[in-house]
């Protein structure tokens, strides 16, 4: 295990307690968790950068990872230190200069290196998942390893890209595993000791009958969940079932795959689940961010959870009980026959993968994917990276019953940023972002700005109310959503473009 230390900043001694209260309304000089706070709204109260002055923001620093991999992680900022990760790598950076404080590398391994979403911080520890599904706790000050535990057996086909969610002393870690028939598991690990506290299975492990998944495995929880301290419930999106494209061998709805599940953080006990894609046969995870919003729905105050799901539908649920309030498509869809009484799309059997191929919208890459959406309470808009796309899906018995068990090919897609009115599901505005792939994640601020990127590699700022472009800079393809914070009286925005982080702010002279 190699640890690179360039210099260790000794001034950062007042370690900020990343506790539940702080993550509800984190200090504006931090971005302490994947979504910025527990709600998943990825909305900041900062207002220094406005629609009037945003055209004057300038690059303040750049950090180049020197890696081939695109940055798909959210930077985490605590105590003046930015933590940014790629598979096998974690860097600690000085927030004021972007210069490296230390760099940790995990030994070379053969698990999938497809991306890394970020780290989590608790007390004076940083928690990093590895491609081969370990969780390591590092000293936040110098990157020294405190402990290293195996979350799941990578030899069986598990891997991890996950940015953990921490509630109290529970470090909740998810894994991936679509190429093998593996039970879906979310593991809670003691933040101090590394000991396993509980495992929630979205599909049953061998020899267990609950949940009754109809023979399906999968339902991996590879994305970071959200948390409501008042209800003391964690919300997590689950992935697609396995075998992936062969649905015939796993009859029924296959709970709790392609679902939003509400769990008790102390026990991992399921309180409710809602399936966005019953009996999925298209790899459409519901792993996307379950965004928590308190507000009116048709005149009634509600505690809601909202998700724009990979299958092309936008869902609003009552998060106290999982009951559906709204289901509406936000992208081109042709795979459902209607919506059932529970608010779930009804899959059309004619759009299941077949020997001669089925032309299906969305494509396998999805109507959206892991790149974070944002909710802006001022306008009531849920803003999401979307794609109208088509794929062809094949299955024949020769493809078997294991892992992918089928073949599919993306045909074409068009990327957009879409602003959804959460009370009606209607698209308030639609901003084209290019062809061929989904674009970037989203950040909104209380000054009415939306920060995102396009397919061509431009970082962009749009006006939240109508989607008008106000600013752009070519920085390379963004792998996730920007973050923002205030430091020394100045608001900064960090975009990850290509393999670099870029910090932008107004020139010092313009800041009062």
């Amino acid at each position, binding site marked *: 295990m190699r640890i690179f230390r360039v210099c260790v900043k000794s001034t950062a001694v007042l370690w900020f307690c990343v506790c539940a209260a702080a993550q509800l309304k984190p200090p504006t000089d931090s971005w302490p968790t994947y979504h910025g706070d527990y709600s998943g709204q990825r909305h900041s109260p900062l207002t220094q950068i406005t629609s009037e002055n945003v055209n004057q923001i300038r690059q303040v620093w750049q950090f180049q990872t020197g890696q081939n991999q695109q940055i798909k992680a959210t930077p985490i900022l605590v105590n003046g230190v930015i933590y940014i990760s790629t598979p096998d790598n974690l860097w600690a950076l000085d927030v004021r200069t972007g210069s490296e404080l230390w760099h940790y590398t995990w030994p070379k391994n053969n698990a999938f290196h497809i991306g890394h979403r970020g780290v989590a911080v608790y007390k004076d520890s940083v928690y990093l998942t590895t491609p081969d599904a370990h969780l390591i706790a590092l000293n936040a000050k110098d990157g020294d390893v405190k402990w290293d535990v195996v979350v799941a057996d990578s030899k069986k086909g598990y891997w991890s890209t996950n940015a953990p969610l921490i509630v109290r002393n529970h470090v909740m870690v998810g894994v991936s595993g679509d190429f093998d028939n593996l039970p879906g598991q979310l593991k809670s690990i003691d933040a101090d000791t590394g000991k396993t506290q509980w495992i929630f299975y979205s599909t049953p492990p061998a020899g267990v009958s609950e949940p009754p998944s109809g023979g399906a495995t999968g339902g991996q929880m590879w994305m970071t969940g959200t948390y409501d301290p008042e209800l003391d419930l964690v919300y997590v999106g689950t992935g697609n079932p396995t075998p992936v494209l062969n649905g015939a061998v796993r009859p029924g709805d296959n709970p709790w795959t392609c679902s939003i599940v509400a769990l008790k953080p102390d026990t991992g006990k399921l309180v409710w689940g809602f399936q966005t894609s019953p009996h999925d046969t298209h790899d459409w995870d519901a792993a996307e961010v379950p965004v928590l919003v308190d507000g009116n729905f048709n005149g009634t105050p509600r505690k809601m959870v909202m998700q724009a799901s990979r299958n092309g539908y936008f869902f609003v649920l009552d998060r106290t009980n999982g009951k559906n309030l709204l289901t509406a498509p936000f992208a*081109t869809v042709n795979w459902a026959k209607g919506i059932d009484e529970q608010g779930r799309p009804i899959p059309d059997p004619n759009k299941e993968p*077949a020997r001669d*191929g089925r032309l299906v919208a969305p494509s396998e890459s999805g109507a959206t994917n892991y790149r974070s959406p944002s909710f802006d309470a001022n306008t009531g808009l849920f803003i999401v990276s979307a794609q109208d796309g088509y794929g062809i899906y094949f299955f024949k018995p020769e*493809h078997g019953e294991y892992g992918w068990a089928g073949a599919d090919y993306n045909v074409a897609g068009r990327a957009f940023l879409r602003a959804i009115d959460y009370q009606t599901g209607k698209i308030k505005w639609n901003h084209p972002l290019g062809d061929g792939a989904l674009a970037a994640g989203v950040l909104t601020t209380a000054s009415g700005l939306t920060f995102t990127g396009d397919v061509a590699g431009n970082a962009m700022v749009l006006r939240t109310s109508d989607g008008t472009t106000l600013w752009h800079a070519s920085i390379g393809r963004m792998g996730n959503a920007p973050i923002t914070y205030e430091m020394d009286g100045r608001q900064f925005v960090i975009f990850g473009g290509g393999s670099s982080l870029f910090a932008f702010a107004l020139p010092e002279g313009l800041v009062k």
Partner: protein
Amino acid sequence: MLLSAAAATAQEQAGRAQSPASQRPPETVKPQTYSSELIRAGEGRFMAECGFCHGRDTAGGETGPDLTRSMLVAEDFRGDKIAPLLRSGRVEKGMPSFSLTVEDTDAIAAFIHDQKTKMEAVGGGRRGVDPEDLDTGNAEDGRSYFNGPGTCSTCHSAAGDLAGIGTRLQGLQLLQRMLYPTGAKAKVTVTLPSGNTVSGSLASRDEFAITLTDASGERASWPIGDVKFTIDDPLAGHFEQLGKYTDHDMHNVYAYLQSLR
């Protein structure tokens, strides 16, 4: 209802014949062998860097095609085609570039060739799509759709650009090309503030700049707000059509194109 339909589909599919040997993947042009050590090293690198998209066994994964059926792999000799592709990527098709060492690319090429040899010995194709799998359409109905509601004939003709298409392309390749011929260049004409016009093929376009390549191969780029332009994009019609095809239409047009030999 869903279950019985799914079960019926499975039964119907189970009754169909296996792929005949005549549809096997392209044969390796120059046979080549590698040390087991290099193949093992390549397996590890392949799994880490390529396995998610192309499958751990190279036979296709999430999005990426089955490499044992790849023409490029068949024509590759000791990485002479695979290594440059790894370094450049195929960004337009979603494949990133990789900064791998020569040792890594040599090892990856060795593993892919070894897998191809193994898969050829086994036959079939675990995640493949064979040309005869697609033979469910009616060519006559496809011709009617092509000339009628599909409006394909407004840009294409059986005796012109598509003459012999069924000989040039088969199976999945033909179907993909028919649905969306990636790489087909749009033509663009840019009108400069002076009133002069420049024409060429569209190289790139985003919200802020437009770039074309002219007949001499030179690239020129303008901020969007500085010029006026018109784009004739053959892919636009194909994309629109994706929202109109029924699966029957798709298979019928495929059958029609396949008959143009």
